[in-house]
């Protein structure tokens, strides 16, 4: 334990912890919308497209994160504009952005003189290299994203649940969906810091999946997903420290282990509940059954 306290006397460890907290807040809140609205592959396309911006700014010598933010938001706006009504072109466009972004980024990094060690960092993430400046940027983005989510919360949830009904109620569904995509693009940038482009889909999906197994109200799912994100990222981080593994894959694998564990626990609880029902047939309270979100 003193080992751990010693670790946090280093600035890089504190920065890593803060980055993990901000990433968990975003993975939990925005990720829940991404999972229930089935935007997971759009998130994948946007994150890989962001690599083009990373590479460009790397080549310019500017902060690569700025380029990533700009390209990710542009990609989100493009996909939002194509919309679900043109599902086929949107789907194909995801593929185009995905590969095109990676190709552009690699070309720019190739053009940059000298060895590019940070290429791997952006692809697989290295939370231990997060600088104090990055932490400030992450904090600002987190405040903006969560603030906008809170502001439009009612309409966003209604659109996520039932688009047609929300439209009849006068909610601008297309604009709300595009807003959600932009918030997702901003969150993607943060998750790139923690687990990298290739693995960040895991942070968008693992915490909401865990939360959806445990709660049946949207707000409760959001809060639990943030918690699950914190457990996943800190647990993975500590695991990587003890087992001397790269941090990104450690976080992802720890998260997946957590999903399996929680699913098992929910299954067990259901079995026990069913058995108790069999013993006392008068005590049926169907509202208590858990684990219906697969």
């Amino acid at each position, binding site marked *: 334990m003193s080992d751990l306290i010693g670790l946090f006397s280093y600035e890089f460890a504190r920065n890593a912890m803060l980055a993990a907290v901000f990433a968990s807040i975003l993975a939990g809140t925005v990720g829940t919308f991404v999972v*229930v609205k089935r935007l997971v592959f759009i998130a994948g396309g946007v994150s890989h497209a962001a690599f083009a911006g990373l590479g460009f700014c790397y080549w310019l010598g500017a902060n690569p994160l700025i380029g990533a933010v700009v390209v990710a938001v542009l990609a989100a706006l493009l996909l939002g504009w194509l919309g679900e009504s043109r599902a086929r072109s949107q789907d194909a466009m995801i593929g185009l952005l995905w590969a095109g972004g990676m190709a552009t980024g690699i070309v720019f990094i190739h053009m940059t003189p000298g060895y590019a060690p940070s290429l791997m960092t952006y692809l697989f993430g290295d939370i231990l290299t997060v600088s104090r400046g990055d932490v400030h940027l992450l904090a600002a983005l987190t405040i903006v994203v969560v603030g906008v989510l809170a*502001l*439009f919360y*009612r*309409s966003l*949830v*209604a659109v*996520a*649940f*039932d*688009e*047609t*009904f*929300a*439209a*009849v*109620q*006068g*909610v*601008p569904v297309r604009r709300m969906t595009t807003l959600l995509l932009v918030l997702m693009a901003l969150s993607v940038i943060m998750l790139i810091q923690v687990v990298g482009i290739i693995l960040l889909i895991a942070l968008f999906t693992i915490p909401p999946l865990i939360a*959806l197994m445990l*709660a*049946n*109200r*949207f707000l*409760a*799912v959001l809060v639990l997903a943030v918690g699950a994100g914190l457990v996943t990222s800190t647990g993975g981080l500590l695991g990587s420290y003890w087992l001397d593994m790269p941090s990104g894959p450690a976080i992802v694998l720890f998260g997946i282990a957590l999903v399996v564990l929680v699913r098992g626990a929910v299954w067990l609880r259901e079995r026990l509940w069913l058995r108790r029902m069999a013993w006392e047939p008068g005590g049926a309270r*169907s*509202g208590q*059954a858990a684990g*219906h*979100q*697969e």
Partner: protein
Amino acid sequence: MSKAVDPDAVLEVRGLTFGYEREAVLRDVNLRVGGDDFLAIIGPNGGGKTTLLRLILGLETPWRGSVHWSRALVPGAIGYVPQFSTFDKNFPVQVRDAVLMGRLGRGGLLGRYGRADYRAVDRVLEQLHLDGIAAMPIAELSGGQLQRALIARALVGDPAILFLDEPTASVDAETRQVLEGVLAELNRRIPVVVITHDITGFASQVKQIACVNRQLFYHGSGKLSHSDLAEAYGCPVELIAHGVPHRILHDHDHQHAHAHE
């Protein structure tokens, strides 16, 4: 046809033509819904029933023609009960929260739910016998309970008209009974429009019938003739056999609703 809006009509559809891609699904549809109407819109699958509803709700823009509302349409004034297939049944939401979304139209984009909203939800939950399962996730509801929850969501905004899109025919006895009572009471104040392929569930309440199959054939009497149905369906026999009140009408003029008045 006069340009002025019929003062007794809540809703008037005029010369509506619309389609997807290049093919017209609806052609020159005219319809008038009066203040105390209980209108059933029936017709074969793919005939354009749901498309007509989407046009009326403003979810699609017509190629030609228009939809007129008698009063300025404030958000929340349209009560809408969608088909089960249009939303995710596994969405993490309890009955009470789902019904609360019916108050969304009030208060605008940045609004928050207030005490009046929660009181309205409690009232409508009781009215539809849902108060006992208000905290249940919708994923665990039976078909009938879900149907009632969707109707509660449509009613909680105190709408000026209620649309039901294919309410399930196979609902439990409690739902059927509650539904009948609620719709009858509602129909004393506002018009009710039911889109259905199975009119038998509402046979005792329906006052007007419109058959939609590319065109709209209107029957102000709420009674159908063999020839009307034959025209709309091609094969009407099964529907008649289910006990729809019908008689042979010789003098019907089915194209324009206004012609009946």
